[in-house]
């Protein structure tokens, strides 16, 4: 951790208009929960739809995408990253610091609101809400690491990230079994299943597989991002 890098990163993330989109996520989630609570529908079914499909399935990856790319891709894009890189700082330190900021922000903006929304909707029964929250913490961290790496690898990180989240995870993942194994969202769901009472949350990917893949993606993406950042090239072409 480098406190200066963390400070610059956090200010860059929250000091721009992007923060409004980010804040819309928790607000949306809470509004939906309040509305859903008074709808009189089956509570467990509602919890699955709001916490599972909406929060874990859409809001967590979107937040992870905006935050994960936001902590580094913007700086690479506009070239201000040179001020961090032209310093005798180990590159892995820059990457891990930015990752900590990204993970913390993703948690704050999506996992915490998910928990609050869950309490409003369903309460603490059957550890369903706890399960979804832990799932969101785990997948939020993995998305942050993955999208931070994308931000280092490509100038089209947001597009690539959206393609992954929407096309691979949501579209293909909901039909093709194999694709689910390689889906961050499903790993989170697998944790939710393990924590919630038996039979309340169903996940297609086994817990062991999910945990391994979470760790491999988190560590691998961070290590690879560090290597790529050490070889970052300034382009002469605009």
């Amino acid at each position, binding site marked *: 951790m480098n406190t*200066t890098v963390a400070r610059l990163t956090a200010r860059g993330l929250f000091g721009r208009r992007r923060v409004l989109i980010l804040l819309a996520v928790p607000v949306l989630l809470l509004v939906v929960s309040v509305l859903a609570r008074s709808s009189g529908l089956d509570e467990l079914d509602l919890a699955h739809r709001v916490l599972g499909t909406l929060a874990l399935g859409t809001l967590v990856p979107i937040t992870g995408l905006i935050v994960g790319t936001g902590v580094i891709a913007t700086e690479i894009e506009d070239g201000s990253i040179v001020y961090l890189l032209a310093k005798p700082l180990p590159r892995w330190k820059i990457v891990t610091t930015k990752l900590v900021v990204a993970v913390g922000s993703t948690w704050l903006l999506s996992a915490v609101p998910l928990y609050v929304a869950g309490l409003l909707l369903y309460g603490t029964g059957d550890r369903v809400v706890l399960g979804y929250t832990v799932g969101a913490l785990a997948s939020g961290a993995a998305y942050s690491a993955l999208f931070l790496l994308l931000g280092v690898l490509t100038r089209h990180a947001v597009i690539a990230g959206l393609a992954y989240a929407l096309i691979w995870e949501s579209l293909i993942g909901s039909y093709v079994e194999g694709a689910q194994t390689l889906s961050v969202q499903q790993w989170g769901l697998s944790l939710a299943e393990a924590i919630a009472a038996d039979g309340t949350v169903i996940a297609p990917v086994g817990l062991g597989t999910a945990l391994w893949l979470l760790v491999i993606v988190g560590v691998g993406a961070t290590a690879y991002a560090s290597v790529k950042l050490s070889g970052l090239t300034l382009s002469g072409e605009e």
Partner: protein
Amino acid sequence: MAVITIDKVSRWFGNVVAVNDVTMTIGPGITGLLGPNGAGKSTLIHMMSGFLAPSAGAVTLDGARIWRNQEVYREIGLVPEKESMYDYLTGWEFVLANAELHGLADPGAAAERALALVEMGYAQDRHTGTYSKGMKQRVKMASALVHDPSVLLLDEPFNGMDPRQRLHLMELLRRFGADGRTVLFSSHILEEVEQLARHIEVVVAGRHAASGDFREIRRLMTDRPHRYLVRSSDDRQLASALIADGSTAGIEFDASEKALRIQAVDFQGFTTLLPRVARAAGIRLYTVSPADESLESVFSYLVSS
């Protein structure tokens, strides 16, 4: 003493050769890197500042490889060409952050010293996003010298500056050079480089075209015969118009090239004379290219700009 050595360095992007087998040494004092647009100046500076790997050859600082070696930044201060610089920070916050990132013992004092050096203390509490080009340039300078580096690299530092800011920056760089630091700046304007640089390196189309102090560069420029290959809508009439004008030393028609070969006397004048004569005679010029090797074309470019 900090010396940057560029040894048989080439850099290509796909099949574009941006820097072609360049060897030069940049030592203490002020060196100007002069060349027209696309000559490879930025590419060279990126390699000297560790932001680009050479495709071939080696770029070193006092013997240490620069690429993928972040320790060199203890010695190097870089003023990049791009303006973007965390515009949500104030000048003070920006320079202070740079001091902290260097791990200096007293970053506050270092930031204050650097801002005073570039005379930006008065605007240090404003957001850098509100600065003029010249002010941005000076704060970038402050961030580059906050750790008291022995090497300062600047890519086109005078771009967009007004004359007063230009003089001030020149003064600052002179002081740096006089301290025995190694200062390298790039420019495509000969006058700018002449005013400031003790030593000039000229690059053209990726090649190291000339090297020396400004007198030597000027001499190279003016003492050479200047030959041009010209094609026009009416070569015969153009030739007689030019002969009548008397500012050419020789004109011949090259049948194989279907073009005129013209030797200019006053080379500076020729670049303005030719279009004028052609226009007066109602002749359209199709090609005007220096017939000598590349050095010629740089100079015509440098002088006419």
